[in-house]
C-alpha cells in the first residue's frame, strides 16, 4: 500500500500515453477569447481572403529595389505555407478579356437618342482633338460617341508604402490563429527576410507569435521563482521529502485524470485551460496540509473531516456551476478543475494514510479561535465595495492584457498609414442565394456609390436583364449607319468606325468570379457571403444583410459579454456558497463568510485604486472565491486553532507559489491574476492572524 499513490499515477500515465496521439490540445487563442459569432465572422473574412495577408516592403523606389523585391517574392513562393505572392497590381489578361467582353453591361449607358447633326458634331470634335493634341491619346473607335462610360479608379502598377518603398502581398493557407502553425510560418518568413536589408514585414499573426514567445519567456521565469519557493517550502520549512514527492504524484494523477475526462468531453483541450487548470489543481494542497498538520495521515484509515469535505464540496460546487458557462475557455477550465480537485481530494483522504508519512512535530493546543467581530469586517468590506461600486471601471480592450509589443505596433501603424488602410472599412454582405447576395450588394451600392466589391465584376441577373433590355431598345443600327455616312466627310479614313457598336445584340448575362478580381463569393452554413470596402466615415444602417468586420470592436463586445456572464455565474456561485455556509454555521454565517467577503472586497478595492478591472482580474476573483471559502469553513469553530492556522498558512504559501508569483510578470494578463491572488492571500493571512494582532482587545 505504500506505493499505491505511485502506482495510481503510473496507471493514469500509461492510459494517457496510450491515448496521447488522440488527445488534441488547441492553441487556437482566437476561439478562446472570441464568441462563436465573432469567430464565424472572422473565419468568413478569412475564407474571403481578407484576414491573413502578409505585407513585405523593401526600402527605396529605384529599379534595383524593385528587382530585389521580385527576388524576395521568388524566395517566398518556395515556402510551402505561402499560397500566393503578388507584386504587380495590374489585372491578368483573363480578367481584362472578361471585362472587355462585359464592358457594355458594367458601364454606365447614356440612352439619349442622338440626331445625325449631333453625331457629326461629336466626330468633328474628335477630329479636331487629334490635330490639336500634344500628347498621344488614341481614339476609341469602338465607342466614338462615348455612349458608355465607367468611373475611373486609379490603380498603381506597384503598391508603394509611403516614404518607404515597394510592397508585395503574400497569402497563406495556414490557420494563423493556431500558435504552432503561425510560429512555423513566422520562422520561415524571417529566414527569407533576414537575407535582405531594409525589408520590413507585417501580418496580424506576428503578434500571436512574438507575444506568445515573450509570454513564454516571462512564464519560464515565473515558473522558476515558483519552483524555488515550493522547494523551499517543502524541503526547508516542512523538511518532509516523502510528503513532497507524494503530493507531486497526487497532483500529477489529478491532472492526468482531468485531461482524460476532458478529452472525452471536448474535441480539443485549450492549452490555456490546461495551464490554468494545473495551477488550480495545486489549490487541493490545502486539503493535504489540513490532514497533515492534524496528523490524520497516521490514522491508517480513510479520513473524513467534515470541514475539509465541506471546503472541497464548496469549491467543487463553484466549478460545477461554472462548467455550464457559454464561454468555452471557462467551461473547460471549470470541468478540468472540478475533476482534478475531486481526484486530489480522494487521494489525500483515502490513499495518503497508507504512505507512512511522518507526522509533523505535535504542538496542538486545544482552544477556540479568537477572532475579530465579523460584523466589523463585514462593514469594512461593504464600505470598500461601496467605493468599488462608484469608482470601478471595466477595461474592454483585451489587447491591453497582452504584452505591449511596441515594435509591431509601430510597424502596423506604418503600414496602415502608408497604405492608407485607415481610410476604409470592410463590410460582410450576405444573401440566401448568389442572386440574392448580388441584389443585396446592388441595394447597398445605391446607398454608398463609392463602395468597391464583387459587384464591379458580377451583376445580379435582375440588373443584367434590365441592361440587356436597354441595349435592345436602343437603335445602334442607325448610329452605325450615321457614323459610316459622316466619317469620311469629317476627315477620317473610310472604315475607321466600322467596328463601332458591333455585337451588342450578342451580349448575354454570363458572369463568373475570377481569382484576380480580389473579391470572392463563398457559401457558409447555407448562406452566401462577400466583402466590400467602404469609406470609413460611412455609417452602415442596420441591415440583416450587412455587418462591419471590425475585429477590435467584436473583441470589445465579446469582452463585455464575458464580463456580464462571469458576473452572473459569480452571483449564482455566491448563492451556492451562502447555502453551504448556512448549513455549516447557521445564524453565525458571518464568521466563515468574512473569509470570502474581505479578500474579494479588498482585491476589488485595490484594483479600483490602481486602475481598471479586466477580464483576468475577474478570472482570478473566481479562483479566490473558490479557495477563500475553504479557509472560512476550516477556521469556523476550530478546536485545533494552531494546526488549522498552520495548514492554511502553508496552503496559502503554496497558492502564492503557484498563482501569487504571477504578480512578478510583465504580461498584464498574468500580473492581473497574481495581483488579485496576492491581495486575497494577504487578506486571509490578516484574518487568520487577527486574534494575535489584536490580542489586547477583548473581542468576545
Amino acid at each position, binding site marked *: 500500500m505504500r506505493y499505491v499513490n505511485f502506482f495510481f499515477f503510473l496507471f493514469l500515465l500509461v492510459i494517457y500515453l496510450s491515448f496521447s496521439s488522440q488527445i488534441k490540445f488547441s492553441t487556437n487563442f482566437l476561439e478562446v477569447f472570441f464568441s462563436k459569432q465573432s469567430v464565424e465572422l472572422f473565419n468568413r473574412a478569412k475564407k474571403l481572403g481578407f484576414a491573413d495577408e502578409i505585407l513585405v516592403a523593401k526600402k527605396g523606389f*529605384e*529599379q534595383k529595389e*524593385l*528587382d530585389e523585391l*521580385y527576388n524576395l517574392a521568388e524566395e517566398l513562393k518556395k515556402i510551402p505555407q505561402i499560397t500566393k505572392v503578388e507584386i*504587380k497590381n*495590374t*489585372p491578368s*489578361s483573363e480578367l*481584362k478579356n472578361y*471585362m*472587355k467582353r462585359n*464592358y457594355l453591361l458594367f*458601364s454606365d449607358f447614356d440612352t439619349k437618342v442622338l440626331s445625325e447633326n449631333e453625331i457629326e458634331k461629336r466626330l468633328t470634335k474628335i*477630329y479636331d482633338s*487629334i*490635330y490639336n493634341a*500634344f*500628347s*498621344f*491619346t*488614341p*481614339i*476609341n*473607335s*469602338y465607342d466614338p460617341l462615348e455612349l458608355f*462610360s*465607367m468611373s*475611373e*479608379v*486609379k*490603380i*498603381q*502598377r*506597384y503598391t508603394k508604402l509611403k516614404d518607404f518603398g515597394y510592397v508585395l502581398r503574400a497569402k497563406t493557407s495556414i490557420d494563423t490563429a493556431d500558435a504552432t502553425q503561425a510560429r512555423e510560418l513566422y520562422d520561415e518568413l524571417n529566414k527569407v527576410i533576414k537575407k535582405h536589408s531594409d525589408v520590413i514585414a507585417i501580418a496580424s499573426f506576428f503578434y500571436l507569435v512574438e507575444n506568445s514567445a515573450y509570454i513564454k519567456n516571462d512564464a519560464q521565469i515565473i515558473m522558476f521563482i515558483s519552483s524555488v519557493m515550493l522547494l523551499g517550502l517543502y524541503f526547508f520549512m516542512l523538511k518532509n521529502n516523502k510528503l513532497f514527492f507524494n503530493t507531486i504524484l497526487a497532483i500529477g494523477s489529478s491532472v492526468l485524470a482531468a485531461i482524460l475526462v476532458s478529452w472525452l468531453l471536448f474535441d480539443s483541450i485549450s492549452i490555456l485551460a490546461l495551464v490554468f487548470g494545473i495551477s488550480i489543481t495545486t489549490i487541493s494542497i490545502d486539503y493535504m496540509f489540513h490532514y497533515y498538520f492534524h496528523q490524520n495521515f497516521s490514522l491508517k484509515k480513510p479520513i473524513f473531516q467534515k470541514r475539509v469535505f465541506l471546503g472541497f464540496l464548496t469549491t467543487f460546487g463553484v466549478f460545477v456551476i461554472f462548467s455550464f458557462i457559454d464561454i468555452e475557455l471557462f467551461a473547460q477550465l471549470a470541468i478540468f478543475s472540478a475533476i482534478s480537485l475531486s481526484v486530489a481530494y480522494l487521494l489525500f483522504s483515502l490513499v495518503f494514510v497508507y504512505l507512512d508519512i511522518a507526522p509533523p512535530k505535535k504542538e496542538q493546543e486545544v482552544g477556540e479561535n479568537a477572532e475579530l467581530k465579523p460584523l466589523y469586517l463585514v462593514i469594512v468590506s461593504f464600505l470598500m465595495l461601496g467605493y468599488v461600486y462608484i469608482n470601478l471601471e471595466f477595461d474592454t480592450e483585451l489587447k491591453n492584457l497582452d504584452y505591449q509589443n511596441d515594435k509591431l505596433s509601430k510597424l502596423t501603424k506604418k503600414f496602415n498609414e502608408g497604405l492608407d488602410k485607415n481610410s476604409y472599412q470592410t463590410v460582410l454582405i450576405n444573401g440566401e442565394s448568389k442572386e440574392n447576395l448580388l441584389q443585396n450588394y446592388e441595394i447597398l451600392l445605391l446607398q454608398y456609390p463609392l463602395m468597391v466589391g464583387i459587384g464591379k465584376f458580377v451583376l445580379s441577373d435582375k440588373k443584367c436583364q434590365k441592361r440587356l433590355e436597354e441595349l435592345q431598345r436602343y437603335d445602334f443600327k442607325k448610329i452605325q449607319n450615321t457614323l459610316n455616312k459622316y466619317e469620311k466627310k469629317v*476627315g*477620317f*479614313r473610310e472604315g*475607321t468606325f466600322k467596328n463601332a457598336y458591333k455585337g451588342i445584340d450578342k451580349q448575354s448575362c454570363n458572369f463568373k468570379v475570377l481569382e484576380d478580381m480580389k473579391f470572392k463569393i463563398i457559401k457558409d452554413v447555407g448562406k452566401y457571403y462577400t466583402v466590400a470596402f467602404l469609406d470609413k466615415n460611412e455609417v452602415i444602417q442596420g441591415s440583416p444583410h450587412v455587418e462591419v468586420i471590425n475585429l477590435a470592436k467584436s473583441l470589445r463586445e465579446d469582452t463585455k459579454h464575458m464580463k456580464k456572464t462571469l458576473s452572473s455565474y459569480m452571483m449564482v456561485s455566491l448563492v451556492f456558497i451562502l447555502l453551504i455556509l448556512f448549513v455549516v454555521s447557521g445564524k453565525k454565517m458571518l464568521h466563515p463568510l468574512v473569509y470570502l467577503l474581505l479578500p474579494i472586497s479588498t482585491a476589488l478595492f485595490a484594483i479600483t485604486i490602481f486602475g481598471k478591472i479586466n477580464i483576468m482580474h475577474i478570472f482570478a476573483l473566481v479562483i479566490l472565491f473558490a479557495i477563500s471559502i475553504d479557509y472560512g469553513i476550516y477556521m469556523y469553530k476550530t478546536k485545533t486553532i494552531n494546526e488549522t492556522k498552520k495548514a492554511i498558512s502553508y496552503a496559502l504559501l503554496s497558492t502564492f507559489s503557484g498563482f501569487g508569483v504571477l504578480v512578478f510578470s510583465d504580461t498584464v494578463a498574468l500580473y492581473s491574476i497574481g495581483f488579485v491572488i496576492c491581495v486575497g492571500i494577504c487578506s486571509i493571512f490578516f484574518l487568520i492572524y487577527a486574534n494575535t494582532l489584536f490580542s489586547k482587545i477583548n473581542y468576545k
Partner: protein
Amino acid sequence: MRFILVILLHVSLFANSYDFDEIKFVSAVGSDFKQSGNIKILDDETIITYKEPRFKQIIKKDDNISIEGASGDIYHLKGKALYYTVLFIDIMTKLDSIDAIKTNRDFKVEKEKNILYLTFLGDLADVIEKAEVKIKEHKVLSFKLFMPNEDTLEVIKK
C-alpha cells in the same frame, strides 16, 4: 475600353536631357504630325518642352501632368489623356537608356544589328504592341512605338 487602370511604369530617374523630333502617325486620319522639343529628366519630375510648331511645356510630377501653352495658361490632364501621357513620358524616359531597356520587366528584347526589337508584355501589350529602338555604341538614337490601332509614335534624338 476605358479601363479603370492607370498604369505607371517604374522608371529609374536620373538627370538627363536631350532634344528630339517627334513623328506621330494617326491611322484614323492617315496623317503624320511632327513636333520638335526637348526632354529633361530630373530626380522628381520630367519636363517636355515643344518648341515647334507651337510652344508647349508638359510637366510630369509624381503621377500628375500639367501643360503650359504659349499664353502661359496652365491646365492639368485627367482621365484617358492623363493615362496615356504619363505612360508615354515614362516610356520615353525608359527607352533613353539601354541599361534600363535590358533590365526591365515590361518587354522582351531581341537585338538585330543596331536595332532592338521590343515586345511589350502584360498590361502594356494592350496599349503598345511593339517598339523598335535604333542604337549606336551603347547609345539610343531613336525609338518607334507601334500601337494596336496602327498608330505609331517615333522619337528621334538630335
